[in-house]
């Protein structure tokens, strides 16, 4: 028996003994479940019904940020994509592309986060893969996932389902993830208690669907923020959306960081929030259901859908005038002037 290496080496990805040990000790032991434990080339799963299927890659930098890490993000992001179709998430695949030299302790911590997040969400890691690349070829670690879930009968959620008269609901305050990650980037040194809002939302969605199966649209405002998501929905459904600036919850620290850096909270990424577009008659009961869930305590109606100017998103400002809210362009770069 040799001592385990303290760092990831090229050999860990080559399929040989070291690689097998890594998988067995680091991944399978932590994420054990009957499907994964078989360690066949494919996971074999029995199910019937409508399948929701999603894939994502996670390249966040820095890999560890306040409130989470890339492992937690990978699980929550994938689970949430499934949940936004109304699906009950079941299984994830997890592929790691690791940069040579990554400390084993960091990998252990990340796998621990994967375990914790998947336990909270009630999903299992069914299959995985590990590759190691030369130093400089991956920014510490990249994770690719795919996920499957089952959509219950009678649920039809799609970005094209919004109808005039619908209400637009938001599950909580925006901008926390993006600012938390930004606070750790080189060159933008500021310190804050703010943490990423990274969270699995599948239970929240299940409770919302229990309250009313008539939800028209669900989407999580990740990259591009709330503004981009609302534009996507307006475009897909061929409707216009109008929101009230005063109703959109933003934490003071997020506002302060945005003011300092010249950013707009509407465009900052969220990893634990959702937008729901629902018929007006179901608004109250869905809001109540959201507020009973820890990830929906601050749920609020922020606006409504109408027919004129399809594709347009507008916002009533705090001073009572109206302005267009466009999709994000490029990366929100902090400005000085």
């Amino acid at each position: 028996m040799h001592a385990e290496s303290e760092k990831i080496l090229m050999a860990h990805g080559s399929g040989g003994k070291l690689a097998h040990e890594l998988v067995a000790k680091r991944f399978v032991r932590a994420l054990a479940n009957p499907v994964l434990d078989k360690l066949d080339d494919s996971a074999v799963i029995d199910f019937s019904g409508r399948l929701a299927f999603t894939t994502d890659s996670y390249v966040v930098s820095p890999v560890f940020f306040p409130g989470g890490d890339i492992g937690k993000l990978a699980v929550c992001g994938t689970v949430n994509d499934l949940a936004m179709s109304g699906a009950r998430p079941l299984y994830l695949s997890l592929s790691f592309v690791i940069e040579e030299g990554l400390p084993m302790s960091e990998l252990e911590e990340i796998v621990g986060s994967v375990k914790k997040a998947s336990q909270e969400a009630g999903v299992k890691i069914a299959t995985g893969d590990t590759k190691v690349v030369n130093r400089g070829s991956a920014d510490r670690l990249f994770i690719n996932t795919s996920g499957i879930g089952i959509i219950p009968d009678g649920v039809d959620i799609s970005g094209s389902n919004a109808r005039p008269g619908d209400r637009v609901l938001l599950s909580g305050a925006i901008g926390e993830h993006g600012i938390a990650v930004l606070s750790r980037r080189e060159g933008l040194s500021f310190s804050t208690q703010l943490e990423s809002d990274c969270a699995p939302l599948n239970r929240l969605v299940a409770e919302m669907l229990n309250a009313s199966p008539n939800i028209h649209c669900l989407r999580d405002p990740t990259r591009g923020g709330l503004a981009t998501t609302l534009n996507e929905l307006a475009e897909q459904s061929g409707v216009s959306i109008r929101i009230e600036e005063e109703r959109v919850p933003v934490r003071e620290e997020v506002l302060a960081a945005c003011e300092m850096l010249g950013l707009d909270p509407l465009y900052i990424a969220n990893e634990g929030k959702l937008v729901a577009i629902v018929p007006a008659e179901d608004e109250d009961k869905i809001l109540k259901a959201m507020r009973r869930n820890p990830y929906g305590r601050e749920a609020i109606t922020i606006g409504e859908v109408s027919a004129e100017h399809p594709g347009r998103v507008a916002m009533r400002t705090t001073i009572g005038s109206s302005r267009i809210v466009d999709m994000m362009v490029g990366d929100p770069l902090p400005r000085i002037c």
Partner: protein
Amino acid sequence: MRFITEYRRSDLAQGLISQIQHSAKTPSRFMEFCGGHTVTIFRYGIRQVLPNTIEMVSGPGCPVCVTANADLDKAIALAQIPDVIITTFGDMLRVPGSHTSLQEQKADGADVRMVYSTSDALKIAEDNPNKAVVFLGIGFETTAPTIAASILQAEDKQISNFYVLSLHKLCPPVIRAILDSGEVELQGLVCPGHVSAVIGSHPWEFIARDYHIPCVVSGFEPLDILQCVSMLVAQVERGRSEVEIAYRRGVRPEGNREAVRLMERVFEPGTASWRGMGEVPHSGLKIRAEYQQFDAELAFNIHPGPPYEPEGCICGDILRGVKTPLDCQLFGSVCTPQCPVGPCMVSSEGTCAAYYNYGEQR
């Protein structure tokens, strides 16, 4: 946030809006010089709530937008030198020079890093003693003192690999140039708030005295802009032309003497090239001889070649307030924030970006 949120109150906004609606009888055109003011005006839909008698026109107060292509090309040439780290404020990354942008150079392997403060650039210089760290000095009198301070700190700490490419510009000379050109008739000027925090309100007196144009120094929150407009209207209606400060919490008439002293210690005025206006004497800042070891233009041999201006781009006219983005053939079709032709579209404070992002093209 204290001293910010109170100046966004909708009840107080309604009061100012009412007052302006009641009192603005004379048709007036007011120019806001500063890019930050342009952003507030568009972000809060200020023009919508003003009466038809008032027209707001944007001026050349976006330091990124007024940087000439020839100067941008210098920055890009520096980025192409091996072992040079370019440090810059975020605004500059996507601005197209004659042939390429800093962001494109970065994708091609150049070491270009965005920083929030010159302190971050100094730290990068300390951490990378084998490389040359060049800071792109853009900005007006608000920013120039901070760059001056960074050069003095570099001197104190004996940092020998820190350089500044000084593209700083001064506001009063260019406002004079615009007024002298007679191209745009103004009944009032919304004076830049943070430039004035540094230089005070006296430098604007020549505008009121020689050109009989009311000047009011404004802050950056919606109530600040509305209060400023209300004060300009009051002057217009009474036939007065004076310099007043609306942004009293941030600006004293004498400004910040220490900031000006440091700026004048490190820099001296020189000719600067402004996009759309050509060369304007005494409108730029050059590093003084005593600090020449920090001057990137002296330290590096850069010959970027003749600048190229894209056809059809009327950024220059827009910066002078003579045309609006809606007059531009390229606006919204060929030139969009995703693929900008000129800096007015790519800078987050550019007039074209403001028009586009807040829906004016529809």
